[in-house]
């Protein structure tokens, strides 16, 4: 008993010692540090976690060979910017891309700030599933923010601000999830968000679409969902749009649907038409003029 009591005293003494504060993430978990090659671009051809240790200005994009600043050519690669930024080079004459991959799977892009790119992140899988993850990034003043084509992927926790051209987010293939992102500011005349396949779009906030004109085109919608897109030919798809907040700009529509698109528990505020074409109102949507 005495030993036990003394043990408690010792533990309490130790517990009183201050715990180390959670610190800025270490670089220890990084396979390597991202550095551009002689031609000004980065090729990640080895699996692992590749990190930024400072802000980068991308190389000059002057051809198809140099437009992709970080080109991922292996599976199982994580690009972890650890809060640092990648800014496009103002001398670029070719539409620059910050991070891209083609025919790969399980590529992660996290913790980055992207600014000034034609496409910030474009990830396309091969015949196998993509299983991409794009999370906790900030996109600012890019022509288009994210293009993702790969089944079983997630776009989560990103802030996508002031997109200047075409779509802010384009997601294709099956079983993808777009969760808890903020989309704010977009100046093109087509869709803000383009979703294809059986996507789950949940918990997102959208506002700041460019004002429409008096003539209302059905295509001037904040979100366009095409659940009929069936790249693997495995049957009808069902897309789910739930628990989102959509705030309209003048003369804009909310959600335009093709195929089975279930819409539930959203707030759609101020649209000319909140749900158009094939949207299936599953209830608890707050639609206000």
């Amino acid at each position, binding site marked *: 008993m005495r030993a036990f009591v003394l043990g408690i005293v010792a533990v309490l003494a130790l517990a009183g010692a201050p715990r180390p504060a959670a610190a800025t993430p270490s*670089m220890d978990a990084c396979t390597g540090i991202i550095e551009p090659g002689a031609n000004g671009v980065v090729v990640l051809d080895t699996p692992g976690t590749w990190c930024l240790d400072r802000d980068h200005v991308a190389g000059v994009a002057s051809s198809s060979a140099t437009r992709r600043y970080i080109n991922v050519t292996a599976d199982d690669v994580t690009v972890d910017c650890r809060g640092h930024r990648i800014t496009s080079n103002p001398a670029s004459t070719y539409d620059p891309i910050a991070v891209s991959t083609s025919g790969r799977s399980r590529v992660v892009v996290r913790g980055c700030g992207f600014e000034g790119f034609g496409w910030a992140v474009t990830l396309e899988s091969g015949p196998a599933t993509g299983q991409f993850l794009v999370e906790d990034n900030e996109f600012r003043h890019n022509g288009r923010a994210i293009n993702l084509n790969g089944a079983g992927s997630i776009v989560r926790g990103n802030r996508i601000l002031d997109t200047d051209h075409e779509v802010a987010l384009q997601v294709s293939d099956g079983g993808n999830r777009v969760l808890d992102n903020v989309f704010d500011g977009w100046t093109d005349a087509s869709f803000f968000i383009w979703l294809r396949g059986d996507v789950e779009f949940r918990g997102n906030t959208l506002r700041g679409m460019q004002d429409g004109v008096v003539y209302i085109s059905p295509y001037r919608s904040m979100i366009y969902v095409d659940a009929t897109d069936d790249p693997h030919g495995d049957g009808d798809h069902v897309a789910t749009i739930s628990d989102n907040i959509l705030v309209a700009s003048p003369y804009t529509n909310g959600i335009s649907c093709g195929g089975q698109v279930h819409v539930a528990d959203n707030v759609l505020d101020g649209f000319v038409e909140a749900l158009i074409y094939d949207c299936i109102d599953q209830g608890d949507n707050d639609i206000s003029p």
Partner: protein
Amino acid sequence: MKFLASAALLALAFLLPTSGARAAESYDACTGTVTTLPFTISTPGTWCLKQDLSTAASGAAITVNASNVTLDCNGFRIDGTAAGIGAANRGVAASGRLNVAVRNCQVRGFQYGIVLLGATGGDHLVEHNRLSGNTSFGIFIEGDGSLVRDNQVSMTGGSTLTPHAYGIYARYITDIVDNTVSGVAGNGTSGNIIGIFTLNNTGGTVVGNRVHGLVKAGTTPLRGILNNQSSRMVLVRNNVSGDGSAGGVGITCTSSGSRVKDSVVSGFPTGLSACGDAGRNDITP
């Protein structure tokens, strides 16, 4: 021997990190370190704290004089308590900057805990901070495209310079998400006691916040969440509680174009004022 064994076992059980805990990590990603107060950051990048810092000076403890700056306090504290409740001091301050992030800070004892000013600025991020004992404003933020997320703001108020106290004050388009505002009180004379206040926040969102512990000052009614000149806001899943004092309003909107949904409002004679009721709200006086 038995004592050593039992002490060792218990110590291990107590000190082993629980699932999800992170061990101490390095500062490799820091552009620079804030070593003393007051301090001015003039270079973009990530600036870190590696220890608690305090100051008795008026003015700003940390001034951010550049855009694209992240201040990561790594859990350490910035303390201005020594300046007293009559001080016009600020914990972290910026003006007219873009993309300033303040995270993982403990901020205590300033008239303005974190203040990011400027209509021409914006895209700020204030997250994962603990603010306590600040005497007029816990967080004061201006600028479109800003996000105030997952902060604890407690015991705000008591300044002798002004009777007003605000837990979170946001101007222009801002999302205020998953914060806890606990304890907002004045200095005894009539003044605005407001948990979350937004101004010119058209299209902004207030989601998932908890507001409680508001203490009425004088004759001015309590306001849990007040949105002024802010149309088309969306307020979802907020829990707001008052003290039942006369005239209090749980959530105030500019017009019914602002929607309130899935919120619990209690302890206010008026639950919702001028808001559109989007459903599943639980309102109890």
